[in-house]
């Protein structure tokens, strides 16, 4: 499994007043409203937790079957990477290249 980290200028924030979870980009000003699970997925990725562990956490907190949970979590991670909230760890990128070669 790939390892991800938050992109350098992204910060996560829970706002108690609006009861909303955010990812803010402090260089471009972009901001994204997250679900609670989305917020914790990103936080756990940043903490270096294994994706299977994250899927297990989401499964415990969402009323969905494990397959759906796995699919949704991976979709969320892919989408987060595409829009620049997270990126693959450099070491992982090197490993990926080695595997391709």
């Amino acid at each position, binding site marked *: 499994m790939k390892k991800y980290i938050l992109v350098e200028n992204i*910060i996560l*924030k829970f*706002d*108690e*007043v*609006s009861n*909303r979870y*955010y990812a*803010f*980009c*402090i*260089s*471009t*000003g*972009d*901001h*994204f*409203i*997250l*679900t609670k699970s*989305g917020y914790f997925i990103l936080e756990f990725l940043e903490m270096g937790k294994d994706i299977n562990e994250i899927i297990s956490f989401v499964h415990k907190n969402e009323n969905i079957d494990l397959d759906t949970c796995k699919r949704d979590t991976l979709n*969320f991670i892919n*989408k*987060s990477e595409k*829009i620049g909230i997270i990126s693959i760890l450099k070491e992982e990128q090197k490993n990926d290249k080695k595997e391709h070669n």
Partner: protein
Amino acid sequence: MSNNHLLETAYEEEFYFQWHITNECNLRCKHCYHDNYLDDSLKLDQLIKIGNHLCDAAKKWGKKASFSLTGGEPFTNPENLFAILELLETRNVDRIDILTNGFLIDEEIINRLKKFKKLRRIQLSLEGLKETNDRIRGDGSFDKTIKIIKLLKDHSFTISIMMTIGKHNKDEVIPLAKELKVLNVDTFILDRFIPEGQSQNKKDWLLSPEEIKNVYSEAYNYFQNCLKPRFLLYRTLFCLLNPDDPHIGAICSVGNNAVTIMPNGDVLPCRRLPIKIGNLLEETIYKIWYTSPLLWEMRNPKNLKGKCNNCEHIPICRGCRAMAYAITDDYFETDPQCWK
């Protein structure tokens, strides 16, 4: 995941930047909140960079950018001021105000100002009738200001007059309003005196809650029957006069839809709340807006203390945090002038 371009913590349509482009000033008013008058303005290219960045931020947040350009006295460096006006005129800016004492405005300046379509109004200050005003703002300042009002009105500028009220001038609100009516002034703004900067030792000028209530009530009643000038109260508490009248004031904008930029690029939550939350030469406005612990604290009404906590007027008031800070050193304390 949603990429709603509205900044969720800012529910107003407008984002307001109060930009102090210089500390330099040609007056030394006794009630001034500034603590120095050194000409420590940034270089023009730095100012332009900041101006562009602030406009970009408003655009990113889907807000109408509104600027008040002030100082010190902004006309002490007209070239910087006009260069910023040129920039803002071409950018996504809804409106621009200039807050000035007006003493450096002449026909030439007026002719230069005329071309700026986004210049909504020029705000001058008077602190009462001639004797009281001149005691605070300097000899001859009342007559000079009246002359400038007339000159600007002759050229069809929209004029607002701000009066900062304390014990020294509380009985002159209505008499001054009557003079301003004759001069066809558009808006009359009452602000509350906050002892800070040059005036931090003038706490005896501060009005009691009962006195503020009387001044506000008298003014509100007077302006009910007065089409012009329009009456506007700054620094909250207006809701205690009539919570159903949204036209006389606005909720405190700290952490919501405004910041103050100082001459050296420092960012304050409000000019009257002199706590630095960042600097635009070192970081983006996004970083400041999204990460300042002070701003996040301010956004949460649960942090309010005393009478302000659990007050039914929280949605439209919250008291003046700058006043609480100046008097108690705790910006979450009860607004010391609230008469509720």
